[in-house]
């Protein structure tokens, strides 16, 4: 377990001190949300209605941009080879790296959403649920994304490919995230949608490292 936490700490420190990654993701998030009203027209009622969906989709895209970094820089400088030959099982390496991605990218993006919500005239009642769905849903985003990152580690044009592989798998997260937010705005079942979202995240925390570790092992040989 010491190795696990040491790795987690290292990745978090790198994310903070190396800079760039988080700033880029947040900047991208802001830009997508800024461009949308310019494209759709500044009708405040329309914006207020579509705000939760826009914020969720922009969050998925911003997270997607940063997925490549989970393994690629460590693969290039050989760190991943050292980790593969070490005592820590590959599954735990993946878990640690995905967790670091969630802490360093998923949570900041989720916390950024309410600020961007102001720009989109989001209903004030929706703020707590929106942030709750994002905090509950982003672990699934990071862990499913890690599978995509592991699979595309050695491919050409990994960035575009990872989007094609991973975005279809984000559909359940997006749908239940939206279901929870819309539940508050009048339909029904906020808490059940939140519970399912939590279940999705927990299941992906358990299952995705298995697939990602298998993919990494094949490429380390």
């Amino acid at each position, binding site marked *: 377990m010491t190795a696990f936490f040491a790795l987690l700490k290292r990745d978090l420190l790198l994310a903070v001190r190396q800079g760039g990654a988080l700033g880029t993701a947040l900047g991208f998030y802001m830009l997508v949300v800024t461009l949308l009203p310019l494209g759709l027209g500044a009708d405040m009622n329309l914006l207020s209605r579509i705000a939760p969906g826009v914020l969720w989709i922009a969050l998925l895209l911003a997270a997607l941009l940063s997925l490549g970094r989970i393994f690629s820089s460590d693969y290039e400088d050989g760190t991943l080879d050292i980790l593969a030959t070490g005592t820590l099982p590959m599954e735990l390496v993946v878990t640690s790296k995905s967790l670091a991605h969630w802490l360093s990218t998923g949570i900041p993006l989720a916390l950024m959403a309410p600020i961007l919500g102001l720009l989109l005239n989001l209903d004030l009642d929706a703020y707590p649920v929106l942030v709750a769905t994002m905090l509950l849903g982003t672990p699934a985003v990071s862990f499913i994304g890690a599978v995509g990152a592991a699979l595309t580690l050695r*491919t*050409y044009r990994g960035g575009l490919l990872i989007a094609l592989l991973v975005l279809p798998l984000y*559909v359940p997260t997006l749908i*239940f995230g939206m279901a929870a937010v819309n539940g508050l705005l009048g339909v029904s079942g906020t808490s059940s949608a939140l519970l399912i979202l939590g279940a999705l995240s927990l299941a992906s925390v358990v299952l995705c490292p298995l697939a990602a570790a298998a993919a990494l092992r094949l490429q380390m040989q």
Partner: protein
Amino acid sequence: MQTLTQRLANPTRFMEFSGRLLPWISAAAALLIACGLYLGFSAPPDYQQGETVRIMYIHVPSAWLAMAIYSVIAISSFGLLVFRHPLADVSAKAAVPLGAAFTLLALVTGSLWGRPMWGTYWVWDARLTSVLILFFLYLGLMALRASLEDETLASKLTAILALVGIVMLPIIKFSVDFANTLHQPSSVLRVGGPTIEASLLTPLLLTAAGFTLLFSAMHLKAMRNEILRRRVKALQLAEVERAHTAQLAAAE
């Protein structure tokens, strides 16, 4: 005592076996599809849907195959990763483009059928959405394989993606079902017997069986082509190797 799958692990034996089987399957597929389409087009038009109901004879078998082929891919991927069956990868690789084609066919025919029936080419209904996402999963499988040069690695990574996909598919289906459904519920395989009139159901079952055999025939053919392609590649590599050794010997 070897099972059939173990016996067929030998590519030569597989080539012989599939070569003998292929004409029969192809002929049966052609016969069933011809009979099904003939009966389908000679049956009286539906009292509500009119002539457009005949799209069903292409649409329903394609949609059934879209799902069935994904399970063929998933089983083959499992066979590759767990049992390292030499033909499992050939089977998975051959099935992916076929699955994508049948999924696209189901989407296009469904869209053309939806226009007169629902008044629109596309609706964000649960089933349409999940079939569209299935199509994207097929595209992902093809793109991942195409982007890796090392063929063995490409096969294994694609197999992992296929297995991730088969776990995710029910979840995606369940999530998409959250939306209200415009598409009609199952009317062939249901408790209490089919709700389709027999004159429409018989041709549907015939074309469904025919399409399945058509897929089997195309799958076998594609697998045979893939095996031949690998043999040609191995021979070419051996040729290069021999030329290289001869060159070295001449230089000495």
